[in-house]
């Protein structure tokens, strides 16, 4: 992971790397199965619609390389946590555009899409919420 080597070089003696990335639970069998959950949020309720299908392969395999690089390049992990990173989108049109332009064309299943469209049509003030599990690590230069 040459980027980490470069990061080590440009950091001061007491510098640190902050790495923020999607979080893959250890039990996952496939890198594309990152759970990015989609909800329709109405005035009364938050309704789970489905999970986005998106290819996170590059991040999953980067994880494996990074752990080795951290050891080789004298970084010490001083902080490691996961949290839910949240997006709010005002309409299905915005949701479609954002998925196409920013989320590697991530897709929702046909039934889930139909359900989401119906929920949004029937609730004028509803918005779409997407929850992504994210990991933050702080790596201290040694």
């Amino acid at each position, binding site marked *: 992971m040459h*980027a980490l080597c470069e990061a080590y070089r440009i950091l001061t003696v007491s*510098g*640190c790397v902050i790495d*923020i990335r*999607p979080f893959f639970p250890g039990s996952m069998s496939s890198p594309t199965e990152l759970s990015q959950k989609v909800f329709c949020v109405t005035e009364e309720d938050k309704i789970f619609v489905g999970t986005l299908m998106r290819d996170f392969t590059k*991040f999953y395999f980067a994880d494996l390389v990074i752990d080795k690089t951290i050891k080789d390049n004298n970084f010490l992990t001083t902080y490691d946590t996961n949290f839910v990173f949240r997006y*709010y989108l*005002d309409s299905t049109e915005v949701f479609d555009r954002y998925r196409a332009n920013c989320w590697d064309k991530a897709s929702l299943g046909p039934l889930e899409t139909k359900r989401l469209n119906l929920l949004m049509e029937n609730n004028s003030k509803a918005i779409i919420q997407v929850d992504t599990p994210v990991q933050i690590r702080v790596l201290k230069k040694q």
Partner: protein
Amino acid sequence: MKGVRVDPERREVRLLMKQVSFAGARVLDIGTGNGRLASRLSSWIHSVTAVDLSREELRQAYDRKRLDKIGHFAVADASHLPFRDGSFDIALFSWSL
């Protein structure tokens, strides 16, 4: 993008503030994209140098008002950074490593 709110609760920054001392820090934001995170950290840091391979995304970062006075921008490859050794206090990789 209009109609999208990204982490409006600022969870990401709140977690980082508890763990990292940003006061007066020189930050290198590698793969900055549209500069969202750098912009949110701007109140606390000394300066941010934002690099990305995409001129288009870098332009979006450049246009953020919060980065006006403290931001520097460069098209650069993370594996060959055009900076001297020991130039920064924090190297930030947000979905870019």
